């Protein structure tokens, strides 16, 4: 009997730990939580999302997996997975229904994955050939090539599950239907201003619904968002490194939360064989440039002290982060000049760099640093929204972009390293070492096994110095003190949103 009781308690504790929805006396959802998003909502179709805006989707849609507190994927609508070569088998949670009453099962999940593959907008699904149902609650994804990041991709928009009725709806971008804890209240929402969400009556884990109402305000103007936070019109919001977030950091009653992941600002030497700018083929020149940047001053002056020096593509919270690379290109003007002196271009040279308005001040600072070693960087203005496109062409020998540090490291090769990589417009063949590491990183699935490979890759990238990492800015949340004290506020790993499961209002 004693053992029986012990076992029962243990079972309850384990089940609770696994989040299996043990029956507890749940309180009625109460109160409102108001979140402000800095980008306007474009579409509520997760599979057509090409950028930001996930905070608008999370209340309604759940993904098959989500990132745990350490960034490692844990099941959400799935219950487990197995990767066997090019086959990924995923078991699904039973008893889940969409908010319109439609059942969630393997057939629906397959339709979702195949739709995402056909639309081909989500980068994380580009390795997927197709999906098929094995049984009612098991699906199999067939890959075109090994992809250890596939489960991670299913933590984001690629793994969000839409109801069949929503998929069939031509106005899906404003009529989202998912399995999430909240439903979109179109009547209460105001287009371009605020999105209102109310509890989902069919939610599979009702104890996790803590709010009577959740609002996402579209406030792209940083000052307006700051004022809304100061006056209590919003409880939290997301920010980039700008004067307004610096104000939050020093305003009593407000708090700037530094989330995991972030944006890594870096310079890309696209013409690394020197087709247009011969000097770029010289490793000494590239290393001189890397040493010439005073990242500390850059972070303070240009990014308001909210950015950290960066020498690798990974953030400090990432599993691939290599502490040994810290300071590898520490600011050292003498060293930079020595590298230039021993290069084949000791007198310096000039090159063009594309710029969009938000990067103008960054590039002016970099131009000043490069000028100190005799390199003249001409800043060429581009229309906003065109930087990525021109960076994929041979119009410029170098460019500057940001890399999201929470992106799986395999994408480094797809974007910068492979001969046909998106941001390798001069089609430079990678070094044997880099190519081998890129291929090696695709074989194992376990991050613990992959980490040493990608650390080597970061080290090799530093040696070749065609990607010059400058600073890393964490994901920033501006919150009120009450939100900061609210223990139910959990920031999603590597994402600019709050986990709504279990979130309660500040009061």
């Amino acid at each position, binding site marked *: 009997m004693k053992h029986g009781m012990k076992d029962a308690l243990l079972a309850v504790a384990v089940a609770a730990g696994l989040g299996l929805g043990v029956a507890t006396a749940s309180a009625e959802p109460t109160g409102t939580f108001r979140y402000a998003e800095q980008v306007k909502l474009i579409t509520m179709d997760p599979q057509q999302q*090409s*950028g930001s805006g996930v905070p608008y989707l999370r209340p309604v849609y759940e993904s098959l997996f989500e990132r745990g507190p350490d960034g490692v994927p844990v099941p959400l609508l799935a219950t487990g997975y197995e990767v066997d070569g090019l086959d990924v088998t995923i078991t699904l949670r039973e008893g889940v229904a969409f908010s319109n009453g439609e059942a969630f099962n393997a057939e629906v999940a397959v339709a979702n994955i195949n739709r995402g593959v056909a639309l081909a*907008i989500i980068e994380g699904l580009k390795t997927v050939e197709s999906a098929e149902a094995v049984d009612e609650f098991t699906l199999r994804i067939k890959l075109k090539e090994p992809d250890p990041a596939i489960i991670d991709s299913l933590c984001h928009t690629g793994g969000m599950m839409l109801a069949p009725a929503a998929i069939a709806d031509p106005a899906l971008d*404003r009529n989202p239907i998912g399995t999430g804890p909240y439903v979109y209240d179109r009547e209460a929402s105001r287009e*371009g201003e605020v999105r209102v969400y109310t509890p989902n009556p069919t939610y599979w884990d009702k104890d996790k619904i803590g709010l009577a109402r959740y609002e996402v305000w579209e406030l*792209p103007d940083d000052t307006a968002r700051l004022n*809304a936070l100061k006056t209590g*019109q919003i409880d939290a919001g997301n920010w980039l490194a700008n004067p307004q977030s610096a104000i939050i950091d020093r305003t009593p009653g407000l708090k700037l939360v530094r989330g995991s992941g972030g944006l890594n600002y870096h310079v890309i030497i696209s013409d690394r064989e020197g087709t247009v700018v011969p000097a770029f083929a010289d490793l000494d020149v590239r290393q001189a440039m890397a040493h010439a940047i005073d990242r500390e001053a850059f972070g303070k002056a240009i990014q308001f002290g909210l950015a950290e020096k960066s020498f690798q593509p990974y953030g400090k919270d990432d599993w691939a982060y290599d502490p040994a690379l810290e300071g590898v290109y520490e600011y050292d003007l003498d060293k930079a000049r020595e590298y230039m002196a021993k290069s084949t271009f000791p007198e310096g040279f000039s090159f063009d760099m594309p710029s969009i308005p938000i990067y103008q001040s960054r590039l002016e600072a970099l131009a000043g640093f490069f000028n100190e070693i005799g390199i003249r960087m001409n800043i060429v203005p581009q229309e906003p*929204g065109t930087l990525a496109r021109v960076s994929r062409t041979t119009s410029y020998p170098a460019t500057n972009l940001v890399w999201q540090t929470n992106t799986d490291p395999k994408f480094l090769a797809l974007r910068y390293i492979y001969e046909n990589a*998106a941001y390798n417009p001069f089609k430079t063949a990678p070094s044997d070492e880099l190519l081998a590491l890129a291929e090696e990183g695709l074989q194992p699935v376990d991050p613990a096994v992959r980490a040493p490979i990608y650390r080597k890759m970061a080290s090799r990238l530093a040696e070749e110095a065609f990607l010059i990492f400058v600073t890393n800015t964490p994901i920033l949340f501006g919150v009120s003190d009450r939100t900061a004290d609210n223990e139910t506020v959990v920031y999603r790993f590597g994402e600019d949103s709050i986990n709504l499961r279990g979130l309660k209002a500040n009061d």
Partner: protein
Amino acid sequence: MIRLIVQRLLALVPLLFIVSVLTFSFTSLLPSDPVDLIVGDTATQEQYEIVRERLGMNQPIVVRYVQWLGRAVQGDLGTSFFNSVSVTGAVMQRLPVTLSLTAVSALIAIVVGVAAGMAAALRPRSWIDRFATLGATFGQAIPNFWFGLILVAVFAVNLRWFPATGFTALSASPWDWLRSVILPSIALGTSSSAAIARQVRSAMVGVLQQDYIRAARAQGLSARRVLIKHALTNAMVPVVAVLSFQITVLLGGALVVEQVFAINGLGTLAIGAVRQQDIPMIQGIVLVMVALVVVVQLATDIVYGLLNPKARPS
């Protein structure tokens, strides 16, 4: 008068046509590409082409324009490039917001401007006149967005008297509506009130020196009657012309002030559409704004005619 209204409304048709041609042409000349924004940074050329075809961007500009025009004359301004939101719906949703802002701003501008102008004109070269002139100069010099930021900092963030951001519809709560528009309207209307004050002062000083004013006073009419009925009515004739221009300025200024107060009006919609190069949305906004300006000018002409019988069409 009815003929005037009909004439003006008929003139609106070619005007809107010309404006739509120009807007379509200029927007298409922009180097940025909405398809890039839709497909994102990691899209392949194939995906890019699919979206480009879906939006009809691979067709010649003339064909695209004619197709758009064919739908527009039937009242369909199309849908956004980026989602299923109809242009007409989006514009009509924001129009009351911008009109609220413009109307309250115009009211503030008229009340403050006329009162200050009259006070200054009644006592020329007095301290009231100098103060009003100084105020008018200050009002015209300060940028409305800067003034808006100051108002927010003082009255919303520090004193908490008004909301810092957002707009409440009149139908939802008249009191909250007033609270939501008062600061942006002051920010927006200050400059116009200064311009109106200057005009009223100048016109009133001239009118008050006219013989008929002296005659009215000699007849023993009360000072108030002379001022309101004889002086102000005549002084308002040139002021109405300024007012027409100022309302157009207020409409334009609302686009900027909406940003400061995060008000979801036509300005916010326009800025978003221009940033994304959402051509159907830009077209719709521009056409509505042009129509609004024409309506304002028509209303001005009507008021002008009522105030000045000589100006009425025969």
